[in-house]
């Protein structure tokens, strides 16, 4: 287990270098660049473009640019944003914190509601509730997140007026924990729907399979209460798969935040990535993608380790 963990942790480094290389390469394939984005209409003056390109160091060869970036990145210096002219770390980490809050809220919905729906539909499968719940999860998994977000805003913020429409806190006063939680409800739910549906369907399927196994029959024969049969015996066998899929969903929720943050005006990393692409802010974009990738890899590592801890067969293999 220890050797496996060490091996997985070490494999993060080449993965991150690979991700940064691919991102770097892709960014430089896209037409235009920061000089054009900064100059706007003055970009029609080739001398002006050349001067700014040189000032930004973009006239150097791509390997040289990448090497300079990598050397700085390993020391924690991600450079200065070409869009906002502030250090990328000052820009990135507050946004990362906001996205983590949104991801945590989304994960809460996805796991709690996903498990509840998955377990109960398995228990009452082929009932009207089961069919209705599966239909809703199918719709949830198929509908675009931004569309669901807008529907939620229309219903709960505009028509009913129960919840705020956008942002992380009211712009008209200092932020409070209660205020942030209130602002979190709609975007977190919108972001969670697809993951919720996926978790619910996988848990339902696993539970249906587990509930007809001989050990459940044995548990029932021993007179164990129903909840114990379901939670301790059936669900425990579904748990490794549930954790595995939840780990993957964390990355998905992190990425899905991009759409949700734009719709709900949530000031997070996804929105920053979106605006950095528009402004060709390579410096910020490189760092943001690296952080998202690192988070994704780390969460999957934790999920793998948790799965091994819960399933002795995995650990043995």
């Amino acid at each position: 287990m220890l050797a496996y963990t060490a091996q997985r942790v070490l494999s993060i480094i080449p993965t991150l270098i690979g991700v940064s290389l691919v991102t770097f390469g892709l960014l430089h394939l896209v037409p235009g660049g920061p000089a054009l984005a900064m100059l706007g209409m003055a970009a029609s003056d080739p001398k002006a473009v050349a001067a700014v390109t040189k000032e930004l160091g973009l006239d150097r060869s791509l390997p040289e640019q990448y090497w300079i970036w990598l050397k700085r990145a390993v020391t924690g210096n991600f450079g200065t944003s070409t869009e906002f002219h502030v250090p990328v770390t000052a820009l990135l980490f507050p946004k990362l914190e906001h996205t983590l809050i949104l991801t945590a809220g989304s994960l809460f919905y996805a796991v709690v509601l996903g498990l509840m729906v998955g377990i109960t539909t398995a228990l009452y499968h082929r009932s009207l509730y089961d069919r209705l719940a599966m239909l809703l999860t199918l719709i949830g998994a198929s509908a675009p997140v931004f569309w669901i977000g807008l529907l939620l805003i229309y219903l709960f913020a505009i028509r009913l007026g129960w919840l705020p429409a956008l942002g992380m806190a009211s712009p008209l006063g200092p932020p409070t924990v209660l205020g942030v939680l209130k602002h979190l409800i709609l975007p977190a739910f919108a972001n969670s729907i697809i993951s919720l549906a996926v978790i619910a369907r996988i848990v339902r399927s696993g539970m249906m399979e587990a509930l007809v196994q001989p050990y459940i029959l044995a548990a029932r024969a021993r007179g164990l209460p129903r909840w114990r049969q379901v939670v301790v015996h059936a669900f425990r066998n579904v748990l490794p798969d549930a954790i595995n899929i939840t780990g993957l969903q964390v990355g998905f929720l992190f990425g899905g935040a991009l759409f949700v943050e734009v719709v709900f005006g949530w000031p997070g990393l996804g929105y920053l990535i979106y605006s950095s692409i528009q402004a060709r802010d390579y410096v910020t974009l490189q760092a943001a993608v690296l952080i998202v990738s690192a988070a994704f890899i780390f969460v999957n590592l934790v999920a793998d380790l948790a799965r091994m801890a819960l399933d002795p067969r995995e650990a043995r293999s």
Partner: protein
Amino acid sequence: MTRSVDGALTDLVHGKLSRRDFAAHAAALGLSVTAISALLRSAPAEAAASDAVFPITGPMQDGSGGTLVVGQESNWDVLDPCLGTGAVTWRTCLYQIYESLVAREMDNPSGLSDPIVPGITKSIDRSSDGKTYTFHLQDGVTFSDGTPFDAAAVMWNVERQWDQSKLGRKNAPQFDTTAAAVRSWFWNPAQMVSMTSPNPGTVVFELAKPFAPFVSGMPESGLGTMGMSSPAVWKTGGTAAIAAHPIGTGPFLFESQSPGDQLNIVKNPKYWNPAGAAKADRIIFKALTDPSTRVAALRGGDAHVIFAPPTEEIASLQREGFIVTARANPHLWYMQLNAHEPYWKDRRVRQAFFMSINRNAMAKRLMRGTALPAVSINGRTCPSWTDQAGYPEHNIKAAKQLLADAGLEKGFETTFQIPTGGSGEMDPVGMAEWIARDAAQVGIKIKLQTMEWISYLHAWAGGMTAGIGMNQQSWGMTSIYWPNLPLRTTSALNVGHQPDTRFDVLLDQANSSLDDETAIAKYRAVDALNAQEMWLLPIVNDLAPVVISPKVRNFVHSSDWWWDFKKVWVQS
């Protein structure tokens, strides 16, 4: 159902009733034509220049206080007057913090354009040979850090973007390559050779030759050409310090920002001009890039003002009690034709294409009245704007005849390069599809080639290549200077490679004019020449609708690209 005259007048002022409908209602109530005319004149909020259904003001009322939340359609970028190039950066955020050496009055509810007015410059003298401009500075102006705004500060700011190496001199320590590049469109043609200060209240600019747009061009393109920032800030940490601690002479002070999310500014209690002091206590700018999100923010009470509302939402927002304002401004949505493509070499083909486009219907139906058909290459607020330039009306029959005369009765195929969105671009894809549909009626088959904004800017700035028949851009200035950029044969913005040097001759004559009337007449002659030659096709002028909450007071729709919020306040 007949409403009262007062009710109809209120609806007219709030944009729920057009002038024509108001007149019909008033006539139904038995009012005379004279009375109706008088009432129409008494409605100050009506956009007379546009004859549109939108007013140019919200409720006007004396008072002060409140926090104004403004929902913007994109991020602001660098909070530095020399480097901030994003439209929204200057349009709303920085304009409140910094002031330009040349001020314009953009919030006059009855004015149709925005004349140059005294600001931090009291007055400007021009020498009889048109080569020397003397700026007399306002007394007692200080930056918000307490340092004086004087001739030394002006010269320091100009030296940040004035590339003196072209004159064989050493650039100032604060010279910034990017700033010079961003403003090169102004400083290069202005050909300034010296800048002196005979006393702390006076700055003298010497030009190599007369340049008529010298003063009117200064506040253009984001005011950054002459937005004044405190030299003391730069001394604390260079260019980065200016963006981190924006210090200007304006009616508001920078308070804090979360880049890409929220920017807070507060009233400047020590503003140099008490009569022009800010009314609102605070303004919060929110970056709300999704149009539906902006509308939701307005409806949910999280924003008081939203820019660029989706046109399909405008009617319902008006019904809900929000006020939609709009106003003519320098904006022009125009097309340029690629002179290297053989089919455009015949002037009749260019004319036929222009005549095939139904710009009136496009403005009314596609843009739902939020735009006007363009009749000039000059912005509607520009002194040289005229509706007499001679651009032909939409006429399919005449267009077909012209094509037949040119031997192209069967039409031809061409490619139209457009962005999917971008600064001031309105609905480029929808508009291009409209143009393609119209052109197909005369046999011109247009293939659309769409690109994301920065990629498009890359392609556009390089000039049209073989196979591209036309492209599009949105720009315009209140300064008379603008036609120099797309029409001068040597300009990098002549992206269609138009070869007619008669434009250059007229533009040179306009720029070297020693009086405004001559310069304006020459720029109108450039417009008239283009109306014949049709290298640059003026399509529509955006009225730039804005939606405001009924709580907002003294909001006047700007007649320029930039907005002045100092008179606005919010009723609690």
